[in-house]
């Protein structure tokens, strides 16, 4: 599978363990973008000549593939620039000036699922409730559900922590929210690439993810808005293609896709879904194997405090001696790419009592040999700096 990703041929000496930040792209996705821009470039939904119709059909096809990927309907799929934009749209919509009550999020959220709610609640005088994690940084579903009451407007929760790798019990949270009359929103940015996601089983109203974390192009994303809930959404931007002749927003998904989108990237995102569909089992097997190996190898290094508590594609840790900047910069010197810092999860950092973490994350293109290089070099760095004492 590694051979599908040309990045590694171009960078044979790099050990890339930062897929949770962004994934590398398979050749078929790159080819799809180049093919569109080379042979099919034209705008969509506006003109009647053949290549424009063909481009429109390719976007519709990408939408169908996105819908199948999460068991939704095409008319429930809004193309966005990414998870952040999608969650901003949902937060701004449901916390409108007429909204009263409270919003429930958690301490485990990435800034993209914290800041939009904080801002929308501040603007409209709505209470923001924060579900806590336990001493190990684990989020229990009950910590969220006990904050939901009959005045809760919406609950917005990550499906998989970008720091600990914990997969949250979103099904339980969403079904409780529904019983209480609250909307449910899932930040699936990390979840969808590693897990099969079925929005019908989860029972959420909204679910967002980004293309670039699932081996697709940057600047693309998907917002699922269930047929029952799409009427609660308001567009963040209006303009060409999104309004009627009297300038009122179009109904349905097209009211949320104003202006000319990055069509080449959306078409390539469609190709990404094909790639994932064809390789789902192989990806899962490789990632399961690598996750266990990574967790095991990190856990035995002297001086490491594991933030991630069980094997996951995302594995975070701190060291007693060196700060995360030191580790990241030193490993970077040896071509080893990991994420260091707060990982945009400030509230979780506070709960864990740390300034930042070191995070290694794997994709199907990684190998056990790379994990060996990483952990051996990490041990070497810790020993080297320990020697100064």
């Amino acid at each position, binding site marked *: 599978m590694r051979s599908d990703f040309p990045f590694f041929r171009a960078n044979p000496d790099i050990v890339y363990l930062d897929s949770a930040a962004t994934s590398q792209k398979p050749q078929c996705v790159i080819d799809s973008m180049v093919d569109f821009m080379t042979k099919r470039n034209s705008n969509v939904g506006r003109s009647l000549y053949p290549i424009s119709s063909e481009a429109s059909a390719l976007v519709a096809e990408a939408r169908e593939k996105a819908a199948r990927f999460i068991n939704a309907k095409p008319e429930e799929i809004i193309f966005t620039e990414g998870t952040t934009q999608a969650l901003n749209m949902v937060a701004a919509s449901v916390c409108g000036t007429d909204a009263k009550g409270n919003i429930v999020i958690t301490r485990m959220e990435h800034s993209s699922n914290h800041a939009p709610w904080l801002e929308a609640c501040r603007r409209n005088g709505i209470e923001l409730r924060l579900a806590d994690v336990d001493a190990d940084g684990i989020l229990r579903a009950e910590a969220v559900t006990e904050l939901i009451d009959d005045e809760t407007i919406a609950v917005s929760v990550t499906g998989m922590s970008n720091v600990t790798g914990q997969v949250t019990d979103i099904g339980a949270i969403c079904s409780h929210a529904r019983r209480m009359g609250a909307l449910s929103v899932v930040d699936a940015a990390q979840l969808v690439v590693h897990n099969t996601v079925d929005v019908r089983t989860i029972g959420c109203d909204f679910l967002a993810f980004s293309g670039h974390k699932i081996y697709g192009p940057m600047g693309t994303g998907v917002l699922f808005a269930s047929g029952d809930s799409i009427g609660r959404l308001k567009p963040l931007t209006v303009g060409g293609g999104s309004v009627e002749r009297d300038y009122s927003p179009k109904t349905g998904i097209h009211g949320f896709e104003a202006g000319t989108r990055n069509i080449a990237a959306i078409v390539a995102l469609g190709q990404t879904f094909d790639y994932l569909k064809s390789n789902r089992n192989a990806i899962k097997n490789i990632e399961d194997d690598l996750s266990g190996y990574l967790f095991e190898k990190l856990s035995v290094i002297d001086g490491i405090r594991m933030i991630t508590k069980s094997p996951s594609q995302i594995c975070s840790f701190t060291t007693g001696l*060196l700060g995360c*900047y030191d580790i990241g*910069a030193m490993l970077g010197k040896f071509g080893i790419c990991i994420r260091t810092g707060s990982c945009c999860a400030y509230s979780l950092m506070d709960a864990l009592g740390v300034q930042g973490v070191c995070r290694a994350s794997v994709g199907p293109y990684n190998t056990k040999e790379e994990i060996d290089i990483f952990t051996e070099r990490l041990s070497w760095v810790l020993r080297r700096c320990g020697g100064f004492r």
Partner: protein
Amino acid sequence: MSSIREKEDLHIRRLSETDELGQFDYLVDLGLSLGRDGETEVEENRIEGCRTAIWLKMDGRTVRASSDSLVVLGLISILKDIYDGRSPSEIRANPIRFLDAISVHVVYPEIRENGIRRCFEIITASKEV
């Protein structure tokens, strides 16, 4: 007492004589010797917008600072070595030069611009005492 320039030149010479790994070692060694200053690690002293935590305040003519990074503590150690006991006007007349002697792979641009240069601004903004 040596001048700011003389003291800084000594650090520049040591940093210039070694490779990137040697620069890491030099800064980590200085950082370990300095140690963290837990009392300064409060929100009001925190320098925002930096990839690593830096806290800094002036205590008269003494720089009091801390960081969770040993490399950054090493940089703070140099700042203290060259600027402690000096007046703000003296410090303003001798802006930081030693960062240019350090590889960008050891001290990343954001640490330079949002971290250490911001430290310099706070140091020079303090009142003359």
